[in-house]
């Protein structure tokens, strides 16, 4: 038996040991907390990427061209990482948002026209999100005249009541639904080796004689370039750059914590593209293989999930689409109003009262109301067009944004030692040149096919 004194001695011994242990792990605790506090924006940005416009564009590209669009994923991953990394670096070093920097360095007019473009293109994206809501709820037999106004109201209230940050976590969790594409792709038993070969540009692979019979080259026409532009625009959407830089500033990331953020951006970019790879392979192995080349509603798109979910495929797809649409719809109008108001010098922020920040609240409300109303007013046959063209609009806007980012990030008076390295600059400018090339090809083939006499 222990007597009391012995017990007490034991007890103090243990509690001392516990204290020592606590002291020893304190530095690590702090480091882990620090990592968790900076990690996140990159992952969120890349996840929001797979919004309604994104899902549609990926699925449509897989259905229309099979594996023949896969080669674009590697250059797109590079461009995504390069452009987001520059923005997060600018946020960490300058502590200012992208639109603030544009205003200070390029003056009022450039800012005004750029912001006008951002506003129009982002309105297109908001419309795409509400189209996603309409499509998803259509699967459950709910008319868009009920689902879209409800979704608009929900999003508006969520943000204005300040509950958005908490709900964001729910949205982020439901994003796990995308993993069903990975499983479904595996179950559909695609030819993985061939899919992997398509990760290189097919035109180049076909130069090897043995490859000619297995690898098909895509037709280089306006429709193909339109899909490519849509893919680029949805993956590397301009608004993500504003959002990411603002989030980095908001999280008070400084140059010392910056390496964590860079890892976060890298993980986000790569994981996003892996999901995109599986979505395209999955739709290619199901829809394209079955000869369905046009996705006209959510049920068709859901066929891609049949190998996994069978008759529940439509419901699974609808839940994922609804979640993605609402997630993006709760971030996009808000981030747009922030960006525009900060650039133009209007009071902004949800923590301000509507009376203090009239323009901010007006813009935010207008984006949601107009976006939702247009979806109700426009004929349903336009909805696919809205989904794809809003993403192509992103690609067009990406050009000036990339140029502006590159000019800013190389300014030594702003960035000091954190300007781009020479190699990084090469990669970034070449990517921008490729973007310009793609846009020119799209415009050229588009105009050429518009003027081609009918029947040829």
């Amino acid at each position, binding site marked *: 038996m222990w007597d009391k004194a012995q017990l007490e001695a034991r007890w103090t011994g243990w509690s001392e040991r516990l204290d020592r242990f*606590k*002291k020893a792990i*304190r530095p690590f605790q702090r480091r882990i907390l620090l990592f968790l506090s900076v990690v996140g924006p990159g992952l969120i940005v890349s996840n929001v990427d797979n919004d309604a416009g994104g899902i549609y564009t990926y699925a449509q590209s897989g259905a229309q061209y099979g594996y023949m669009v896969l080669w674009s994923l590697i250059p797109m991953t590079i461009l995504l990482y390069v452009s987001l990394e520059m923005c997060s670096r600018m946020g960490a*070093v*300058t*502590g*200012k948002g992208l639109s*603030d920097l544009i*205003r*200070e360095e390029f*003056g*009022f*007019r450039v*800012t*005004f026209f750029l912001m006008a473009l951002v506003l129009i293109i982002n309105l297109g994206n908001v419309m795409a999100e509400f189209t996603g809501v309409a499509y998803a709820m259509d699967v459950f037999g709910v008319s868009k005249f009920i689902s879209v106004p409800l979704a608009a109201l929900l999003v508006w209230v969520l943000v204005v009541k300040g509950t958005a940050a908490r709900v964001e976590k729910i949205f982020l969790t439901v994003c796990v639904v995308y993993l069903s594409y990975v499983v479904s792709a595996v179950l559909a038993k695609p030819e993985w080796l061939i899919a992997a070969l398509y990760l290189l540009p097919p035109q180049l692979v076909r130069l090897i004689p043995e490859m000619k019979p297995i690898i098909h080259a895509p037709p280089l026409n306006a429709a193909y370039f339109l899909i490519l532009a849509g893919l680029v625009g949805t993956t590397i959407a301009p608004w993500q750059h504003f959002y990411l830089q603002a989030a980095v500033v908001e*999280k*008070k990331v*400084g140059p*010392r914590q910056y390496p964590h953020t860079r890892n976060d951006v890298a993980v986000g970019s790569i994981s996003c593209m892996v999901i995109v790879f599986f979505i395209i392979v999955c739709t290619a192995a199901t829809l394209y293989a079955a000869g369905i080349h046009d996705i006209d509603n959510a049920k068709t798109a859901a066929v891609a999930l049949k190998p996994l979910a069978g008759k529940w495929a439509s419901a699974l797809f609808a839940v994922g689409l609804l979640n993605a649409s609402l997630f993006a719809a709760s971030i996009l109008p808000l981030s747009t109003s922030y960006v525009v108001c900060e650039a*133009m*010098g209007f009071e902004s922020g949800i923590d301000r009262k509507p009376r203090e920040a009239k323009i901010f609240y007006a813009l935010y409300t207008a984006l949601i109301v107009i976006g939702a109303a247009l979806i109700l007013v426009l004929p349903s046959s336009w909805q696919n067009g809205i989904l794809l063209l809003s993403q192509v609009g992103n690609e067009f806007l990406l050009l000036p944004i990339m140029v502006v980012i590159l000019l800013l990030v190389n300014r030594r008076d702003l960035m000091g030692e954190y300007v781009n390295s020479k190699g990084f600059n090469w990669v970034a400018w070449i990517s921008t040149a490729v973007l310009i090339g793609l846009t020119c090809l799209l415009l050229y083939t588009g105009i050429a096919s518009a003027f081609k006499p009918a029947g040829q």
Partner: protein
Amino acid sequence: MDLYATELMGAEAWDSQGHFVGRVREFFVEPAAAPNRVSHFLLSRGRFQPLVARHDQVASVEPGIIRLSVSERLLEAYQPNEGWLAVQKDLMDQQIIDTSGRKVVRVNDVELSPIKSNGHVELRLVQVDVGLQGAVRRLLQGLPSALIRKLQLSLPQASIRWEFVNLIESDPLRRVKLRITHEKLEDLHPADLAEMMEQLSAAERQSIIASLDEETAAAVLAELDHRLTTQIVENLDPEKAADILEEMAPDAAADLLAELPKETSDELLEEMPGQEAEEVRELLEFDPGTAGGMMNPEFVFVGEKSKRDEVLAWIRKQDLNLDQLDTIVLLDELAQYSGSVSVARLVLADPEQLMRELRTEPLLSVDPQARDKEVFELFDKYNLRSLTVVDQENRPVGTVTVDDVVSRLLK
């Protein structure tokens, strides 16, 4: 009639002989000479070297046109000068602090008032435009100014008088040359200043903290987001940082140092005077989640047998932060904790009353290892304003005050 900077940019300049000289591309204020007078106009002439017109060489100024009182030959060639504040480059589109509205705002346009004096016209900066009117003028800049003025009539006006404008310049040398002081900022409440600083860039924050007096800087740092505080302190000159830390309450200084890398915090402690550094070091030993990690080791204590009047007389002589003083700790002959007295009771007591008779009941204290949750519960249960922390011999080592509790709860 007042003029706007947008109406002057691009204005034609004509000399006394009626020759066209060039167009106004920029104009400057020389704060060393006069704080709000436009001192020089930069006139560009295409591929020729730009000229500069001094304020006493200008005969009249109207929207879009400037007439000089001298001939072109008397104008000097333009030489960049760091001591000149360029209205277009340094002011337009930049953020400034509005010290009357306590906000960070962006400049859309600048309003100038012409003043006639012996044969020439001087322009003085009257106010900066931060509203829609200025935005519209910037957008339509180049159109006839009569038209723009008509258009903007219906728009709301938002402007800040020049004397309330506090410029932000991150380069310390340039700041001295431009005579930018932050005296006006020192009159603001530190919490307001901290909130404004969160909207600025890292370099700008750094520059403001570096130029404030140590006392204000310490108060602002205590209010800032702790993630920003560590960034600022790390980038400060260690001597200055130590001076600021010395002004902070030891518990706030300890919280700040705990976030810094070991080498930096050791270096700063070395720089601080012995006694303050010792207090902070002792606090750093405590786990931040305990009463010891929350407490402030500087508190006011008197003997329990002193009379009310003696205590008041003693307090008058001390250099204390009276806004924060609401409780006085009592000690007995063995220097052990024997209670605390609220300042309100002290005020209303009789001159001869002993401090012991004014004690607040019940007698409460915690030991430094007590978890923060336990402390919060005590504050909640007994509606405390402050709580004394005692060591194993029942000697008071510090006090936790209600503001410590509030800031912990909000974290």
